[in-house]
């Protein structure tokens, strides 16, 4: 647990430091995630310790959003003034994104399988 937590925190620390020093456009924890992913590929597997710690951190992932969500208190005025724009952007934008992502994935998969059947027909 302690070793795994240290590994995860060190990846984040190296990520945050590199982003600051190199002026990268991505946030530190994302670079940290890529570093950890690279480390796992180098090691050729996930140790039980690291696996359990990550599962514990991710098991209540939604809890971690609560403090930021309560921050809505700070923005009552801005939200009241622009509520229609914000609500439309939130609801409609989210639904459109869900549909676009899912339909693109289905479409590309269908195109690929059509390509495969055509190729196998030529092979015949």
């Amino acid at each position, binding site marked *: 647990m302690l070793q795994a937590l240290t590994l995860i925190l060190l990846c984040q620390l190296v990520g945050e430091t590199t982003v600051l020093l190199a002026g990268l456009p991505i946030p530190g924890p994302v670079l940290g995630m890529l570093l950890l992913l690279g480390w796992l590929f180098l090691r050729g597997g996930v140790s039980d310790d690291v*696996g359990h710690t990550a599962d514990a951190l991710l098991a209540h992932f939604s809890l971690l*959003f609560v403090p930021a969500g309560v*921050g809505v208190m700070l923005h009552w005025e801005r939200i009241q003034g622009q509520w229609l724009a914000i609500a439309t952007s939130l609801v409609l934008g989210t639904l459109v994104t869900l549909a676009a992502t899912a339909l693109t994935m289905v479409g590309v998969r269908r195109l690929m399988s059509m390509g495969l059947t055509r190729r196998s027909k030529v092979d015949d």
Partner: protein
Amino acid sequence: MTETPLTQIWVYLAASPLLWLSATLVCYLLADRLYRLGRGNPLLNPVGIAVALLIAILVATDTPYGVYFDGAQFVHFLLGPATVSLAIPLYRQRARLGALALPIGAALLAGVLTASLSAVGLAALLGADVATQVSLAPKSVTAPVAMGISEKLGGIPSLTAVLVVSTGIVGAVFGTGLLRLLGIRDDAVKGIAMGATSHGIGTARAFQVSATMGAFSGLAMALSAFLTATLLPSLLTWVGLVGE
């Protein structure tokens, strides 16, 4: 107010991080219990209910957000390490990831572009100011990443955090129904769409549908966070929201 022993205790507790840290956990557990009692009805999203409970308590006790956050920051801090931990579910899915790389890549690119352009476009159309538009742009990305992006591009990070959480709740509440309406049955596709749109909150919802949907959602959340962080600065410069 007269100094009764009760107010003295309140003054003492209100000054330490313990009170609001505990309140955050208690409200979340209550919301989670309610969600289970409602048999996972997405309308009873635990994040939304926990936030509403906490705000009601803070308003009733006249507690400013800053005081609340002094306690809640310990929970908030874990968002960073949890984001790093996403490497583990990603690594576990590496075999399927290889096979589906092209459709997933295309879907995520479509998702990231649609998410930010629809958010900015709809908000601009309905008269939101530039700061609100920039704060909305990364709303489909997991909170720590979205806040970082928003700050770098001139948005309001704490507003972005709220919008990110709201987007997560909207996706978790309506996502499975919409995907069913679109006739999508494959849990891999549903997971990718959920994670790309509604990040961690959507992923928490996806894990309740199936482990496959959850894993793909986690994958989409991680990759779209990375894609958005890389693409959004040039995208917003291109639409003229951010100066060179």
